[in-house]
């Protein structure tokens, strides 16, 4: 009996342990995850700014599962939210949900990641960095580092993930576009995971050895994995130039010490703030631009001291 009660109390508490109900405008925020190095500060910034703006936010976490996200859009519509901020994890899958939101006359914007062009007619705006653009910037940076020539390896995120697709696609397309002579030796998936990156890097180093002239990692965490593997396998030998993305603190340290060539800073705080501010304007009936980028900064040894790390 007591056990039943305990369980019930726990579930009751879980339901109650959250923000109360107020008669403010309600925005439904479908985020990528609520426990993630980038997403968490973005979520926090978004929620903090919303409070200042007097907007009620319902945060739904997809926990990196697209299917959950598509169903959460339905929750938002059923909840009769005044606006939807979606963090898409797939370029396609949310389109029908967004279409339904439009039918229900709920304005929707995208945060952080883009979707396919087909989605454009269902959204009011897209705020945030462009992962494809980040790939392009990384390509430019690595092209600079190698003087447009050499063999590189790409350590990619999770296969099939929207960010991975954008960051790898932008990189490869850009290299072709500028006619770079950089050759991609291999692209391996390490799921944005440092340990997995460490393991695949060990294998890459064994396989190609000194044939690796440069490295492009889809994020700084995985760049870290390559650095560790290199130091392990070839202690004392000079590190090939490594380009990462995100602008984490430890990447800044690595750039200063020369272990990394560059990273691209995108601030999760800016990302979150911009999204809610844009939504607030939409709710006030103002016109907003269809594309509202957050600043992306390439950080190398040259400017590392003047830029703030993202997180």
């Amino acid at each position, binding site marked *: 009996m007591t056990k039943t009660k305990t369980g019930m109390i726990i579930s009751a508490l879980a339901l109650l342990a959250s923000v109360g109900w107020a008669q403010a405008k309600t925005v439904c925020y479908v985020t990528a*995850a*609520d*426990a*993630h*190095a980038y*997403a*968490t*500060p973005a979520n926090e910034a978004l929620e903090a700014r919303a409070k200042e703006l007097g907007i009620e936010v319902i945060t739904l976490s997809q926990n990196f599962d697209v299917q959950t996200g598509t169903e959460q859009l339905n929750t938002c519509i059923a909840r009769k939210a005044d606006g939807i901020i979606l963090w898409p994890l797939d370029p396609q899958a949310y389109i029908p949900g967004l279409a339904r939101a439009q039918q229900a006359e709920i304005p929707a914007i995208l945060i952080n990641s883009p979707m396919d062009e087909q989605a454009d007619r269902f959204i009011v705006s897209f705020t945030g960095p462009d992962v494809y653009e980040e790939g392009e910037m990384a390509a430019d940076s690595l092209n600079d580092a190698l003087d447009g020539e050499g063999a590189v390896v790409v350590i990619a995120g999770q*296969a099939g993930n929207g960010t991975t697709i954008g960051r790898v696609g932008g990189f490869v397309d850009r290299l072709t576009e500028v006619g770079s002579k950089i050759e991609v030796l*291999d692209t*391996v*998936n390490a799921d944005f*995971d*440092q*340990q997995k990156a*460490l*393991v*695949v890097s*060990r*294998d*890459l*180093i*064994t*396989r190609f*050895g000194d044939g690796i002239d440069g490295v492009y990692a889809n994020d700084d*965490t995985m760049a*870290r*994995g390559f650095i*560790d593997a290199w130091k*392990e*396998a070839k202690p004392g030998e000079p590190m090939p130039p490594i380009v990462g993305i995100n602008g984490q*603190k*430890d990447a800044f340290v690595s750039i200063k010490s020369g272990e990394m060539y560059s990273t691209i800073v995108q601030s999760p705080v800016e990302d979150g703030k911009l999204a809610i501010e844009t939504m607030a304007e939409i709710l006030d009936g103002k016109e907003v631009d269809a594309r509202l980028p957050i600043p992306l900064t390439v950080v190398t040894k040259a400017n590392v001291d003047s830029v703030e790390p993202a*997180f």
Partner: protein
Amino acid sequence: MTDVPIQMRQDTTQDTTNERFRGGSPLVDLLSRGGLAIAILAVLVYGSLTSPFFFTTGNFVNVLTSMAIVGIVVVGMTFVLVVGGLADLSVPATIACGAILSLALQPVIGPVPAFAAAIALAGLCGLISGLLIGYVGINPIIATLGVGTIVLGIVQAAVGGVIVYGTNPDTAALVKSRLFGIPVIVLIFLAVAIIGHFVLSRSYWGRWTVATGGNCSAAEASAVPVRAVKAGAFVITAICSGLSGALLGLTLQSARPLVGTGYEFSAITAVVVGGISIMGGFGSVPRAIAGLVFVQLLTNVMVLQGVRTPVQGFVLGLLIAGAVALDVALRKRGGGA
């Protein structure tokens, strides 16, 4: 206990014998015993023929280092399978527990106590699963799934979901250092494996584990504390995963809640490929490690060959199914009457 299927109450010796334990023809016997050794040898030969980098000290150290972390989990998982506990699916949670706590507690109580506390807390998670499985009688899959979900949720809540960074680079240097050219982490793995092997094959606890997996009721009627033995297997696995996680945290000097994802399946794969029955009552740590070595070498060869990640998963899946199907087939053919 009314749900226990009706037992036979008469002696039919041929039928009472578990198929697995029948004698067979020498060839079949050799195949089932030495199959794994032959397979490892085949991978070695193929690897050295196809890649100039394969048969190098560097590559072997690389393979060993890569398998050390999952290897420690494999040692624990062997106990779970042998005791008839099916599988411990809470491994990702206990690894995360070890990794995050060993880093997060460093500034508070110092690196060594943090390390110990991380492992102890992981062990506590195993104790909860173990109590549910051994004493309450809950199916291990459900219990470890549930406990794993809860623990992972708590761990995420505790750190607010962000990455925890290390504050003491010396600890990282220690874990990454080498002794006689062998990485310390590999030595730790070997020590755990040797201790695990000793406990399973030479100690009374190990004998109890095998007996409980072989026939739980008979072991219980032989004054074996079966509930504790079952629970113990899960505690052992959790301590191993905790240790694994702590070492992982120190190596990476950063830890995320999802750091342990996938390790449970890698460990089960190794144990199963090592020829250890999921039904329990049979198996040893060296067999499980042989399975791990085979899987790791094969993966290494595939990576050196530039095989794509999805294909690697495909091959691994085929390997698990094939290894077990072959095992079943060999034992059946060897069985006869």
